[in-house]
């Protein structure tokens, strides 16, 4: 633990820390461009120069200098000031003065730091060098003349995303950052390089020239594109969310977000349901709220009612629907739209128990039927980190590129019963062995077989539970906590043949099985669910309502409202509350606060942020499984109605997954 002084302040830092980190510990701001705490150290921008004694009588790059005992660091000395001014002057030599037309303006490290640490004027009178723009795909827009060659994007691609497609070609004055042969970057995390870029060289293509950062209202939220529960910030102006950026949460998403999380939001202003609709003579026609409610009342369902929750639903909506059904005398709730019927008697047995951050520390991992890269990209980066620390990964399923070396055992669930020796040996030696069960495996009926492995593979140790299930739906864990599961899955609902069926943003249900039911779709997008419904009630999307979400590791998180729903659309719980009155079963809450109070009275864990912490118990299930396992996600970019309505996601899908080429239009 070296002890050193920074500007006279004594600090103690962990061994292996850098001088830059020591300065931060002392509360000193060190300007930097290339240094990023989540990437390897490059030391090529030279902006973090400080004076260090003992040492050579010249400024030193603090990001690459190990902190040592009895060092004296000066961050404000004349030498440091002059060095920073000099570095800044060099950086600005080739940087264009196009801040007024640059999307990074207002949130640009170079802009901020040149104001704070620069000289205020330039002595450079020669021509600046210009660099041709590079094509990096549908997400990243480039203006390479602005690039200061910090190589953060290159390091991110190599170290975090694992898709080595960005590099620096040529050298010296001619050095250029580019994707390989200017092809689109195929990583589903490529949007993060936009955040990483300290200048305006890499900016967001869908968000180009949309807004200035100071015009945007920033609302903390939770992402619903997958079950990771990425912490995000909705940046909105007026009635539209213009972009989504990740918020730092070390336990969940660190500071990354997948491209779908970031860029599906343009789907929130397309194909929206902004009026109630009622099916008349086979056609959905616009109606008033009263007419729509009357149509539902006319079904005279009595207690023959069921509700199916969609994948992106908040707990409040699910609770309101549950309360309404309970008042009507039914408990036919289901959230697993595609017909899965795994056992949910123990929530811990369908939870990501090692926690998302914890999986990093695993040293042997067996993936069962999970395309983790698509099902939970940010858990995949954690597994990648574990691999870098020396973990071995085995997988059952069809072979694919998960961005790290994987030993594929074959695509047969029967392997669970007779794991190869290499696996059992690795797990026997492992201190923190982990099993990751994907949605595909659950669907193929491997729950019992994987639970049967908990003992033989030693997955549960003191302070460690290595049995993990990766869900695909943001609403899944919350839904299961609220009882949105029937023993036989959706088949039970079909068997009950309800007269009235609520589809709560449920777009993946096979509606042909519900021919006889009056189907009421409460949701925000005109997708499959609304198309097959008899009554459509326009609801709010995840950016338009405060909500509680539980991610795949059982972490309860709260999201805020960024904007209001469009047109006549209302928050889902309010719709159900209004409907309850018409149906004569008035729900006992008039505000969201009251609803939340009622909900937490029933499920206390939903009222407390953080891991819900289910006690471990494993249901007794038949341990036989066989046959191949399929991956549920066929197209990463189009997994939900918002993404399907998004132009950006459609383009990503067409270009990155289906090889369609989009030549850059001449600008």
């Amino acid at each position: 633990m070296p002890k050193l002084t920074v500007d006279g302040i004594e600090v103690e830092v962990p061994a292996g820390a850098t001088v830059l980190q020591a300065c931060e510990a002392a509360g000193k701001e060190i300007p930097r461009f290339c240094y990023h705490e989540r990437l390897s150290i490059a030391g090529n921008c030279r902006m973090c120069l400080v004076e260090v004694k003992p040492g050579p009588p010249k400024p030193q790059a603090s990001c690459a200098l190990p902190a040592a005992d009895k060092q004296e660091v000066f961050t404000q000395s004349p030498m440091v000031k002059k060095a920073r001014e000099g570095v800044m002057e060099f950086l600005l030599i080739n940087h264009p003065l196009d801040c007024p037309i640059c999307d990074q303006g207002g949130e640009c490290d170079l802009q901020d730091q040149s104001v704070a640490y620069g000289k205020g004027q330039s002595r450079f009178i020669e021509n600046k060098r210009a660099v041709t723009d590079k094509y990096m795909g549908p997400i990243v827009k480039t203006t390479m003349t602005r690039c200061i060659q910090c190589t953060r994007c290159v390091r991110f691609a190599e170290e975090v995303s694992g898709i080595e497609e960005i590099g620096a070609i040529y050298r010296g004055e001619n050095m250029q950052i580019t994707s390989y042969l200017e092809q689109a970057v195929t990583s589903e995390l490529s949007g993060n390089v936009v955040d990483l870029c300290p200048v305006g060289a890499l900016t967001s293509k869908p968000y180009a020239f949309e807004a200035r950062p100071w015009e945007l209202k920033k609302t903390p939220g939770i992402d619903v594109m997958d079950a990771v529960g990425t912490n995000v910030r909705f940046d909105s102006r007026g009635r539209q969310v213009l972009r989504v950026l990740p918020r730092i949460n070390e336990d969940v998403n660190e500071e990354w977000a997948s491209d779908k999380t970031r860029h599906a939001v343009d789907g929130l202003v397309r194909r929206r349901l902004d009026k109630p609709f009622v099916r008349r003579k086979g056609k959905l026609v616009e109606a008033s709220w009263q007419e729509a409610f009357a149509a539902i009342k006319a079904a005279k369902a009595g207690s023959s009612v069921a509700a199916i929750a969609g994948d992106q639903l908040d707990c409040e909506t699910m609770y309101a629907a549950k309360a309404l059904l309970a008042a009507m005398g039914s408990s036919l709730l289901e959230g697993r739209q595609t017909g899965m019927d795994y056992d949910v008697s123990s929530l811990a047995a369908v939870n990501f128990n090692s926690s998302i951050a914890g999986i990093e520390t695993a040293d042997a991992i067996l993936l069962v039927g999970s395309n983790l890269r698509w099902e939970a990209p940010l858990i995949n980066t954690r597994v990648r980190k574990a691999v870098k620390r020396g973990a071995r990964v085995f997988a059952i399923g069809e072979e694919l590129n998960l961005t790290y070396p994987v030993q594929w055992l074959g695509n047969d669930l029967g392997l669970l019963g007779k794991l190869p020796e290499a696996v059992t040996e690795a797990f026997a030696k492992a201190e923190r062995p982990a099993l990751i069960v994907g949605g595909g495996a659950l669907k193929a009926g491997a729950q019992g077989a994987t639970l049967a492995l908990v003992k033989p593979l030693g997955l549960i140790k003191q302070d460690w539970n290595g049995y993990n299930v990766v869900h695909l739906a943001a609403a899944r864990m919350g839904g299961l906590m609220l009882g949105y599961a029937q023993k036989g899955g959706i088949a039970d609902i079909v068997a009950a043949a309800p007269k009235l069926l609520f589809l709560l943003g449920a777009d993946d249900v096979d509606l042909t099985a519900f021919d006889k039911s009056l189907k009421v779709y409460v949701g925000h997008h005109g997708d499959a669910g609304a198309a097959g419904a008899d009554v459509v009630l326009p609801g709010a999307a995840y950016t338009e309502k405060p909500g509680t979400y539980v991610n795949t590791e059982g972490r309860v998180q709260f999201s805020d409202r960024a904007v209001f729903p469009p047109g006549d659309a209302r928050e889902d719980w309010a719709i159900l509350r209004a409907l309850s009155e018409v149906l004569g079963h008035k729900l006992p809450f008039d505000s969201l606060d009251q609803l939340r109070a009622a909900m937490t009275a029933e499920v206390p864990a939903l009222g407390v942020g953080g891991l819900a912490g289910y006690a471990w118990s494993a249901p007794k299930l038949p341990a036989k499984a066989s046959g191949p396992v399929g991956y549920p996600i066929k197209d990463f970019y189009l997994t939900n109605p918002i993404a399907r309505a998004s132009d950006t996601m459609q383009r990503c899908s067409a270009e990155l997954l289906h090889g369609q080429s989009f030549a850059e239009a001449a600008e």
Partner: protein
Amino acid sequence: MSDAAHIPDEAETRARWGGFAWTPENAEQAEKIIARYPPGRQQSAVMPLLDLAQRQVGAETGTQGWLPVPVMEYIGAQLGMAYIRVYEVATFYTMYNLAPVGRYHVQVCGTTPCMLRGSDDVLEACYKKGLKKGATTADGLFTLTEVECLGACANAPMVQINDDNYEDLTFDSMTAVLDTLAAGGQPKIGPQIERQTSCPEGGPTTLKEMVAENHDYRGRWEATGNAPA
């Protein structure tokens, strides 16, 4: 990079070079090169392999050789490297040609020492022969590139043509070198004036007695009082 050669169309290159594979001799040589590095560090072999590949392409095309994209990818695949990493290396070093060159790749050094000693005349000689920077002559014989210091400053000005240096050039001697090459001959490699490698022009200026035989200078040290203890 205004004088950089135009990199050929990708589709065309892929059609021509997509099937690139080592010749049996080069395959053996490549294995030998890779074996020089410890297991897990095979990527270190990328530079010699790129050179080997460039030479093989050169042999196939009767030129000095270049590195088409599929060839780089072939090496990347062999070494288990991301293609962009190979591409980075190939673009970093001027010795790897990213575009086809002629039979003779004339690399004129234009860095300060050579420039002071007359590299402009050398370039002029090239221009007179119809060479243009970054381009190959119509007969496919010469490609001219101006490069930075090649480390033969004592013999400035100099050019490197394929694997050989031609040094202490003037307008006339450069013309002569190019003429000889064009006629299919092999000019004298090294200094083009009376001089042995980088020894002083016109013979030794110090230790002259050593030229003919091993001379014992110790007597002189004693006279000057500089004798070693």
